[in-house]
C-alpha cells in the first residue's frame, strides 16, 4: 500500500475518480520477485521441520513443546481438511511446501538501517518506505517477508507509552509471560485444521500490547509479503488491549505472480479487556491467479477476537480483493456485558477466484450488540459466498444483532451465495437479517456513458457506491488505496 504517497484525503469519495483512472488499466502490479538469498528449511513437514523452525528462532523449550503438541494434533486430523466451504481446489500436498524461508541478510535487524538494500528497494516499489522520516507520521509498520519479520518502525516512540509493538519472534523472547498467557487463548490449537497447522509451524507475525488506559496515538500495521517460491506463509498475530485502551491496527499483503498455488494460513487473535476497543482492518491483495485461474494464493485464515471485558468493542473491517481462494471468518466472542462486535466486509472475486468469507458473532454476555455488513462483488467466472453465524446463548439477555448482506454481480457467469446461520437460545434477543442481490445493469452503464463517463469509470463509481458503507470504516490513509484496489480487481470484467 502506498501509504507514504497518499496523504490522508478528507474527501475520499469525491476524489476517487482520478486515482481510479490512473490505475484502472494496470494489472496486478505487485507480482514481481525480489532476488534475495534465502535461508530455508528443507521441503516437507515432520517433527524435525518444527524443531528446525524453533531452533532457528532460538525459542524456549515451552514454545517448542507447544508447537509439537499442535503438530501431533494436526496429524490426527490427517485427511480431514474442512470441506464444508463453498470452494473447490485439488488436495494440498503438505510435503511440497517449504515451511521456513528467511531473507539471508540481516533477518531480524536490530536497526532498520541494517536492512538489505535489495529488500528496502522491494518495499519502496510496493510503496512502503522503511525510512521513518519519510513515512506517514500516523502509521507504525512491522514488515514480514516470507517467514520472518524484518523490521518494525516507530518502536521507541511507542515504547515510551508502554505500548509493545514487535515481531512475534521477539515477543516470545522478550515478553514470554504475555505470550504464554494469551497465545491460543482465543483460537485454541485444536480449533480447526489450519489453525492447528499454523500453531505447529508459524514462523512470525506481529505482537501488540496496549497497556491500561492508553490510547495508541498511531495506526499500527503489518505488511506481509510472500517472496520465495514454494513456501507457505504462516503468521501469527496477537493483539492485547488492556482495560480502557484503544488501538487501530491494519494489515496489508501482496505476493509475486506464480503459476503454482501458495498457501497462506494465518491465525489472528484479539483480546479486549474492560472498556477496551480494538479496530482491525485488512486490505488483502494476495496474488489472485491469472485470468485462466492458474496460480494464486490460498488464503486460509482464522481470525477471532474476544470482548473479554465489559463494555469492550472489537471491530473487523476487511477489503478482500486478492487470493485464488479465500476462506476466512473474522469473528467476535462477546463475553463481557455490553460488549460490541462489528464486521464490515467487501469481498471482490473476478476471473476464477473463489471466496467463502463471513463472520461469527457469539453473544455470551448481557446487552451485547453485533453488526454485520457484508458486500460481495462477483465478476468473471468467480464464486463469492457469505457465510455467517449469529449465536445468542442462553444467558445473553437483550442481545442485538443486525446483519446486512448485499451481493453485486457483474456478468452472468459468476455466482453469489449467502449462508446465514442464526441460533438464538434467549428469547429477549433481537436478530435482524437483510440481504439483497443486484446486477450492474447495462442501463446504469449507459446512463453514465451518456453523461460522458466511460465504462471503466462507471463501474468504479457503481462498485464504490455499493461498497461505501464498508469503505467508510477504513482508516483514512487506506481508504483511497482500497478504492483503487476495487477498481483494479474488476478491470476488464465489464464491456
Amino acid at each position, binding site marked *: 500500500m502506498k501509504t507514504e504517497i497518499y496523504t490522508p484525503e478528507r474527501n475520499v*469519495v*469525491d476524489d476517487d*475518480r482520478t486515482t481510479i483512472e490512473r490505475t484502472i488499466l494496470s494489472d496486478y502490479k505487485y507480482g514481481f520477485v525480489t532476488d534475495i538469498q534465502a535461508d530455508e528449511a528443507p521441503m516437507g513437514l515432520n517433527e524435525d521441520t518444527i524443531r528446525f523452525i524453533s531452533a532457528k528462532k532460538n525459542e524456549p523449550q515451552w514454545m517448542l513443546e507447544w508447537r509439537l503438541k499442535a503438530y501431533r494434533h494436526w496429524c490426527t486430523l490427517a485427511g480431514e481438511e474442512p470441506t464444508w466451504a463453498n470452494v473447490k481446489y485439488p488436495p494440498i500436498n503438505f510435503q511440497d511446501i517449504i515451511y521456513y524461508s528467511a531473507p539471508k541478510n540481516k533477518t531480524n535487524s536490530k536497526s532498520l538501517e541494517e536492512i538489505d538494500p535489495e529488500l528496502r528497494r522491494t518495499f519502496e516499489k510496493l510503496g512502503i518506505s522503511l525510512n521513518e522520516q519519510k513515512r506517514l507520521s500516523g502509521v507504525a509498520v512491522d514488515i514480514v517477508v516470507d517467514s520472518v519479520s524484518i523490521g518494525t518502525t516507530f518502536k521507541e516512540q511507542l515504547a515510551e507509552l508502554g505500548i509493545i509493538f514487535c515481531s512475534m519472534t521477539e515477543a516470545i523472547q522478550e515478553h514470554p509471560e504475555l505470550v504464554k498467557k494469551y497465545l491460543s487463548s482465543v483460537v485454541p490449537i485444536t480449533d480447526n485444521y489450519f489453525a492447528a497447522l499454523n500453531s505447529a509451524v508459524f514462523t512470525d507475525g506481529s505482537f501488540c500490547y496496549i497497556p491500561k488506559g492508553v490510547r495508541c496515538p498511531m495506526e499500527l500495521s503489518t505488511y506481509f509479503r510472500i517472496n520465495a517460491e514454494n513456501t507457505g506463509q504462516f503468521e501469527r498475530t496477537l493483539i492485547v488491549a488492556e482495560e480502557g485502551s484503544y488501538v487501530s491496527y491494519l494489515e496489508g499483503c501482496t505476493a509475486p505472480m506464480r503459476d503454482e498455488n501458495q498457501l497462506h494460513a494465518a491465525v489472528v487473535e484479539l483480546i479486549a479487556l474492560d472498556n477496551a476497543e480494538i479496530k482491525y482492518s485488512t486490505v488483502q491483495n494476495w496474488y489472485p491467479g491469472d485470468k485462466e485461474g492458474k496460480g494464486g494464493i490460498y488464503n486460509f485464515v482464522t481470525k477471532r477476537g474476544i470482548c473479554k471485558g465489559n463494555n469492550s468493542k472489537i471491530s473487523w473491517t476487511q477489503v478482500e480483493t486478492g487470493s485464488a481462494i479465500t476462506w476466512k471468518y473474522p469473528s467476535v466472542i462477546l463475553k463481557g456485558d455490553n460488549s460490541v462486535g462489528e464486521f464490515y466486509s467487501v469481498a471482490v472475486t473476478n476471473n476464477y477466484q473463489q471466496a467463502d468469507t463471513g463472520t461469527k458473532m457469539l453473544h455470551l454476555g448481557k446487552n451485547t450488540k453485533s453488526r454485520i455488513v457484508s458486500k460481495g462483488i462477483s465478476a468473471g467466472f468467480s464464486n463469492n459466498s457469505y457465510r455467517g453465524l449469529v449465536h445468542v446463548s442462553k444467558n445473553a439477555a437483550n442481545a442485538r444483532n443486525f446483519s446486512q448482506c448485499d451481493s453485486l454481480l457483474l456478468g452472468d457467469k459468476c455466482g453469489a451465495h449467502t449462508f446465514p446461520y442464526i441460533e438464538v437460545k434467549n428469547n429477549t434477543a433481537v436478530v435482524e437479517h437483510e440481504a439483497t442481490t*443486484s446486477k450492474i*445493469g*447495462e*442501463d*446504469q452503464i*449507459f*446512463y*453514465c*456513458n*451518456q*453523461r*460522458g*463517463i*466511460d*465504462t471503466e*469509470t462507471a463501474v468504479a*463509481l*457503481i462498485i*464504490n*457506491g*455499493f*461498497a*461505501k*458503507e464498508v469503505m467508510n470504516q477504513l482508516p483514512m490513509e487506506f481508504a483511497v488505496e482500497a478504492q483503487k484496489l476495487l477498481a483494479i480487481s474488476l478491470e476488464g470484467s465489464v464491456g
Partner: protein
Amino acid sequence: MLRIENLHAGIEGKNILKGFNLEIKPGEVHAIMGPNGSGKSTLASVLAGRQDYEVTEGSIEFLGKDLLELSPEKRAGEGLFLAFQYPIEIAGLSTINFIKTSVNEIRKYRGQEPLDAVAFLKLMKEKMALMDIDKSLLSRSLNEGFSGGEKKRNEIFQMAMIQPKLAILDETDSGLDIDAIRIVANGVNTLRNKDNAVLVVTHYQRLLDYIIPDFVHVLYNGRIVKSGPKELALELEERGYEFIKNEISVEEEV
C-alpha cells in the same frame, strides 16, 4: 448542427425507423411528436448511442462529425445530452459526486482543466436556484427514492450543469404535474441561446405550451410524415393522431 439522413434503425431485428430525415440548426427548438410505437424513443436512443439499437442504413452528422462512429461518452463530450424518460438509479453514489464526475469527464474530453471545488460549487448553486433543487436531494444516492418529478428535475439540472450543445428531452413531461412542468420548461428556456439547440420528444403538446418550438414534426411509422410551425402541435392536440393516420392512408392509397 445535426443532420440525419435516411436513417433506418431498429432493435432485435425489428425495423422501427424507416427513412428518417431531420436537420437542426443552432438556436432552434424542434419537437418530435407521434403516437406510441412511432419510433420516438428509438430516435432518442440511437442519437445517444444505446448499444441494443442497430443502425442499418443512413447517416447522422453532428457538428461536422459522423455521430455513429462515436461511443456514447464521446457523443456526450461533443455536446450531446439526453434527458432520460426513465432516469436510472445508482445506490450509494451521491448525485453530486455523479454530476461532478460527469462535468469533469466532459471537460477532460474537451481538453479543459477539471473544475475545482470552488468553481464547481458556484456553478452548482446557480443552477440549483434555477431548477429549484434542494441541496439535500444532491447528497442522496443518484435518483434512488426520488419522486417522478424530482428525477426529471434532476435530469434538467444535469443538463444545466453540463451545458450541452444539443439537448434531447425524451418524454420529459411524462408523469409531471403542471408546476413541475413549469419548472422544467423554465430551466430549458433559460438555457436556450443562439448556439445550442433542443429536440423535444413528446407524446403530448402541453410541454410545448412552455417550451415553444420553432418546428413541429409528426413521426409516424418510423418516418416524419408532417412538419410545420408550432401551431401543428395544437392541431394534433385537437384532432388527435387519427387525422394524421387517415391522411397517410389516403396518400398511400393514391
